[in-house]
């Protein structure tokens, strides 16, 4: 009961009019930062930290965390409308979000994202307040073998996303792995495939890959389509899910919340993992999995919710251990320290007013985002109805400016163009691009955790199978592969007949 009381005190602080204004300012700036490609949430937050120097620490953190979760929502908007995922977690949303927008249902996609994000965020915050501090020990039991097994499990899910042809899916996964190889080898320090270019020493930037493979290639395909047979932009058809969609979406939101929250507790997991696992779960549980990839509402609701509750859960390792789960959280951590709030097990005791005020403000911030975005969804969705010949140059210009801003250099712009062309060719060949972007991220983590495991256990790979958590995950991976082979054989006939799209 003590926690409830503390939370109430937190609300008291967070509900002062200054703090509500700071929260509003934070989420609004965050939305804008999320919409502009290139200027990611971490850079956006970092650039605004100096503004907070003169502020009261609690207000400062309230505003900065507002930017953080506001930008997550902003990223969803560009992903759904123009298929440009600004950050890794949005790649999964693009799978069904963009097809929904193409059918004129952008408003529905954005609406369900707003609701899902709200539910996921709020439930996670309640979880943080009530139970999470006791779960830290469990989360820390995730060592390198467990990470490896979890990532491998994620990879098997990626192959499942591939669509109709397993071979094309595997091909996409391999391209992703090759791209992940660029850069410095984690154990030897050897620089791989840099061709003497400083820009390649660290490998590719995710934003360049995502904007090229998704955004630019989509525009090239669209232009081709326009030349052949001009297409009318889709009409925006309302904001609310149809009656029969309400139940499945609610279920997806519920499952996404639980999944995201628990994954958030494990320190250092990429935000790709919760979205990806939620998407695969939804696809497997759906009555008609063939709708996925063509605009299934569960494919948007689940991952978006998981993403947000992941962020909420990730506050625990951040507050208690000082371990951030993402680059943006690392920046937030820096802001904590700047304002004299050192994370650690006693943070909840030493700065109780701070912790609970920030938690309460996130509740308020999520509510503000919901109120802002439900009406705005209609407005954003109208972007999808701008004629293509006006929309395309705008997207290209924004993408180029965004990529340029990654490191103030034209090099990344060149990368964008190359990945745009690559994406175009791949899409023409019917090879899905989402697995490439996801594996690019997971591949690096997989190599790292495998080498760590081998280093820790003197090259004994079996350790991964004999530890309880990693062993279970490995078994699940094998099961997933077997299931998809069986499903593949079952559907073979049906797929052979279905050659369109």
């Amino acid at each position, binding site marked *: 009961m003590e926690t409830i009381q503390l939370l109430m005190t937190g609300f008291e602080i967070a509900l002062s009019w200054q703090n509500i204004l700071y929260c509003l300012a934070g989420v609004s700036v965050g939305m804008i930062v999320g919409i502009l490609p290139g200027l990611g949430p971490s850079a956006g937050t970092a650039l605004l930290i100096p503004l907070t120097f003169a502020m009261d620490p609690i207000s400062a953190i309230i505003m900065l965390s507002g930017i953080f979760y506001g930008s997550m929502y902003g990223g969803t908007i560009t992903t759904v409308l123009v298929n440009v995922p600004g950050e890794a977690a949005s790649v999964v949303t693009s799978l069904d979000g963009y097809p929904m927008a193409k059918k004129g249902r952008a408003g529905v996609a954005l609406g369900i994202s707003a609701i899902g994000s709200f539910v996921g965020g709020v439930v996670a915050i309640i979880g943080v307040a009530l139970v999470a501090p006791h779960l830290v020990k469990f989360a820390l039991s995730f060592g390198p073998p467990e990470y490896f097994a979890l990532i491998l499990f994620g990879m098997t899910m990626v192959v499942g996303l591939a669509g109709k042809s397993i071979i094309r899916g595997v091909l996409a996964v391999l391209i992703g792995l090759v791209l992940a190889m660029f850069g410095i*080898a984690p154990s030897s*320090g*050897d620089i791989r495939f840099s061709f003497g270019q400083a820009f390649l*020493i660290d490998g590719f930037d995710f934003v360049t890959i995502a904007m090229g493979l998704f955004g630019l290639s989509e525009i090239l395909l669209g232009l081709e389509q326009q030349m052949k047979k001009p297409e009318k932009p889709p009409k925006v058809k309302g904001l609310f899910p149809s009656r029969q969609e309400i139940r499945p979406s609610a279920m997806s939101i519920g499952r996404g919340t639980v999944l995201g929250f628990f994954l958030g507790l494990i320190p250092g997991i990429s935000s790709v993992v919760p979205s990806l696992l939620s998407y695969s779960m939804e696809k497997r549980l759906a009555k008609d999995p063939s709708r996925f990839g063509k605009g299934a509402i569960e494919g948007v609701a689940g991952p978006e919710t998981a993403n947000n509750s992941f962020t909420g859960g990730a506050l625990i390792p951040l507050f208690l251990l000082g371990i951030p789960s993402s680059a943006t959280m690392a920046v937030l951590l820096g802001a904590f320290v700047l304002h004299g709030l050192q994370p650690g097990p006693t943070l909840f005791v030493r700065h109780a007013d701070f912790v609970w005020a920030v938690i309460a403000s996130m509740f308020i911030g999520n509510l503000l985002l919901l109120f802002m975005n439900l009406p705005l969804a209609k407005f954003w969705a109208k972007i999808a109805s701008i004629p293509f010949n006006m929309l395309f140059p705008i997207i290209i210009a924004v993408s180029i400016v965004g990529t340029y801003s990654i490191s103030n250099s034209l090099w990344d712009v060149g990368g964008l163009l190359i990945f745009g062309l690559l994406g175009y060719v791949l899409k023409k060949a019917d090879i899905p691009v989402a697995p490439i972007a996801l594996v690019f991220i997971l591949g690096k983590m997989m190599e790292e955790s495998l080498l760590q495991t081998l280093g820790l256990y003197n090259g004994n790979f079996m350790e991964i199978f004999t530890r309880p958590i990693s062993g279970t995950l490995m078994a699940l991976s094998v099961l997933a592969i077997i299931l998809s082979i069986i499903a593949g054989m079952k559907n073979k006939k049906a797929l052979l007949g279905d050659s369109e799209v």
Partner: protein
Amino acid sequence: MKKRLSLVVSSIIMAGALSACSGAEETSSTASSAGESDFPKKPISIIVAYDAGGGTDTTARTLQPFLEEELGETVTIVNQPGGSGWVGWNAIAAAKPDGYTIGFLNSPNLASGLVNPTMEKQVDLGSFEMIGNHVVDPGAVAIRVDDKRFSNFKELVEYAKDHEVTTTATGVAGDDHLVTLKLNEALGTKFKAIQFDGTAKSRAAFLGGHVDVLVTSVGEAYPMHLEKQLKVAAVTAEERSSFLPDVPTVEEEGFEPVISQSTRGLVAPKGVDEETMEVLETAFEKAVTNAEHEKKMEEIGTQVGYYNAEDYRALLEQDVKDIEGLKELLGW
């Protein structure tokens, strides 16, 4: 409605374009040739080879106002991340040598790149004119508070002479990794470094009991030491750190001295004339040794370590020499 929409979209683009332009201007601001003692006559750009919000960026932005005060001109921080720092460092070396574009070097990261045989070098230490060193962060060797095998540095070393003990590292020949290698070389221990992608991950693996010893920097370790989340057993520095007054150096524990630290210093491209360098060096010294600056830096948990241009060059040369001596252990 449509009109309003296009207005919004175009203003978003404008904002983006403006920010991009300002970035471009900063790096290419090379109007008049300086040289007289009236330097500086226009804003100075400082290149930081890492992302906004990172450690180097934060300390650079802390120094910025003090430098501005001394120079009487605007100083802007330009982030040029990428290539593990090399994009930015190459950009400093390639900048027009008029003193208006300078930047921060990070060692031993720079030094290890210079020694790495798979690196196709475009610059070396001769490509820079040193201005001075700004930050020193010594290595910290930390153990878990509940570890039953060892409870201080002496016990740790004795144990590690007979047993393989795993340590964390964050990059091959990076500052953390060098601590492990130098300890093995000097003390005959059997520490085995496991590479992690960043301190956050290495710390999680250490706290979870997967890796035995956390090797990190004093700046990263001292808050957790104070919180008793871990125990810093020794620092690899010449003297104790003011952040950890109760932690001995390796030498104080009765071993051969082992010095390993990361440093950040300000440099200009080679070829800046002497008078300009003098202005920069003087302003930098005054800004760094300003008591208020030191206080600000302490608040963000960073140790100021001023070295003048000459000493800073010697420090970087020593870093390169150290890593060359460890080539065999690195497998290079």
